[in-house]
């Protein structure tokens, strides 16, 4: 379970373009469920995802998560607010898988290489890693595209590659930021189905979206509404 207590994020502090993205958000994310952050752009959803996913630190407040699989502590929970970058990255790599709005696949290299990328720094042996990547591609019916350049993929294929990449390190949490922004309705529904099956396999899913296909979906276990950097509502 991920817990945020009174988290604030201020950009460009002290400068004329100072901007408060999060003005005190407290949130507890339950494991094994799909949580959707809903709200207009500028509401702080992306920033919140960033902080949850250990991509950036809050300006104030605390973030903690369950310390399973973290080798340097025996505590049940770990406060990650002020962890040094190395440890933060380790946790991020191990616990979280990211799916970006633009997919952000690396051009010019193959699909398989893209999927294996998040695992390069882990020092895992090549063979098992490759096998895992291949079987992931298989799960998403992408085996035939394994050696294709990502530039040659269709929208739906790229989406599935992005999901496969997010899963390579077997993370327990999937974070997706506006995942359906560039997809048509059919692919958006497909996406939600995949998320549903991942949740059924025990993964925690956190998504930010202002797409009704996502936040109005029956698969969304919990919808948290946000506006102007605060929580303003909730739906189950």
């Amino acid at each position, binding site marked *: 379970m991920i817990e945020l207590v009174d988290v604030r994020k201020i950009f460009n502090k002290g400068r004329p373009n100072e901007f408060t993205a999060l003005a005190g958000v407290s949130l507890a994310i339950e494991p094994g469920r799909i949580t959707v952050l809903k709200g207009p752009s500028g509401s702080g959803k992306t920033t919140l995802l960033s902080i949850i996913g250990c991509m950036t630190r809050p300006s104030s407040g605390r973030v903690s998560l369950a310390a399973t699989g973290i080798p340097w502590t025996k505590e049940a929970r770990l406060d990650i607010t002020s962890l040094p*970058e190395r440890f933060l*990255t380790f946790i991020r790599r191990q616990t979280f898988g990211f799916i970006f709005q633009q997919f*952000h696949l690396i051009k*010019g290299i193959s699909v398989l290489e893209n999927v294996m990328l998040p695992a390069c*720094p882990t020092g895992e042996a090549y063979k098992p890693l490759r096998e895992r990547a291949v079987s992931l591609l298989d799960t998403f019916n992408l085996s035939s595209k394994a050696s294709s350049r990502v530039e040659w993929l269709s929208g739906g294929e790229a989406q599935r590659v992005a999901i496969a*990449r997010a899963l390579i*390190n077997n993370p327990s949490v999937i974070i997706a930021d506006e995942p359906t922004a560039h997809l048509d309705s059919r692919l958006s529904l497909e996406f939600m189905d995949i998320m549903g099956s991942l949740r059924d396999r025990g993964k925690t899913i956190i998504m930010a979206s202002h797409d009704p296909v996502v936040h109005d979906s029956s698969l969304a276990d919990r919808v948290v509404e946000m506006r102007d950097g605060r929580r303003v509502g909730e739906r189950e």
Partner: protein
Amino acid sequence: MATWLNRQRSILDFTLSSLWKRKGKNIGLLLVFTLIVFLLASVMFFTYAIKREAQIILKNAPEIVVQRVIAGRHDLIPADYAKKIREIRGVISAKERLWGYYFDPIVGANYTFMTPDPFPLGKGFIKIGKGISGARLAYEGDIMPFRGFDGKPLNLEIREVLSAESELISSDLVLLSAEDYREIFGLPQGVATDIAVSVRNPREIPTIARKITELFPDTRPIMRDEILRTYDSLFTWRGGLMIFILTVCLLSFIIFAWDKASGLSAEEKREIGILKAIGWETSDILAMKSWEGAVISLSAFLLGVTLAYVHIFFSSALLFEPVLKGWSTLYPEFRPVPFIDFSQVLTLFFLSVVPYTVATIIPSWRAATLDPDSVMRAS
């Protein structure tokens, strides 16, 4: 340990894919780099090999050569001087030397005439260097005509053609008797080209040289030490062709390195951001950049040095031949003996691979330390 190796290899895999993406540019970079290393290493190998050979071959050169200088020019030296020099304490012998240059209009080349003492073949016979033999198609048993100072012809029979292996010292030599020499050049008895002095104790050479100048202020003694040092510093890269070629290469190389060092393209920054977002640490990014620099520079260095070795020692410095031959019509065919100065190779390594790798890492430093969060926002 295994983890570290795996990590390096994974990062290397990605680096190679990345380099291959822009293969045109990177292959160009590799070729230029290789070319520069090739030229530098070739010059290094060649000059060092010649230097060492000279050290070995010329260590028996005359201990002191006494030249007479008149009006600033090398002039004939009276044989009397030799008598006086012999009396200096520590001198074993002082022999007149007769040698000079003969211009052969047929070939358009200068031959070096030398009169070894003793010359067992005697009057009428000569030994010639392989270079002359090849240029004049003259072989053992042939008669070679020479024109004397007075226009009179003098025919000498070739008794021996000096070996091809010794061309480095003998290619343009004509060895003949002192008598024939004086006949061709009209040198009267009592004068010689210079005087070769042999000394008992090599440590006394400078002292004796000084005494000779005191005795004969119009002479200039050249010590063996100076002869050897000539070949130590003979080859430098200044002047002419060499500098021009090297400057051009260096400039193109600097331009490439500048391109790298002046910052990353938007594309590269974006890629680094993505890598950080999906879990790469700063150290992983820097490792990747190091590999990027190292792959190109290491490959180029090794290839350049290999090609340079083949160039100098297998093909006998083929590409330098026009420069070395210059305007001479007689050029010795010889294969440099592979004397290698490894510290030079090491220096070349540190002057090429290290700066280039560093130039690849430095501009990435900032991008590598950025918060991955910025990638999320960039959407």
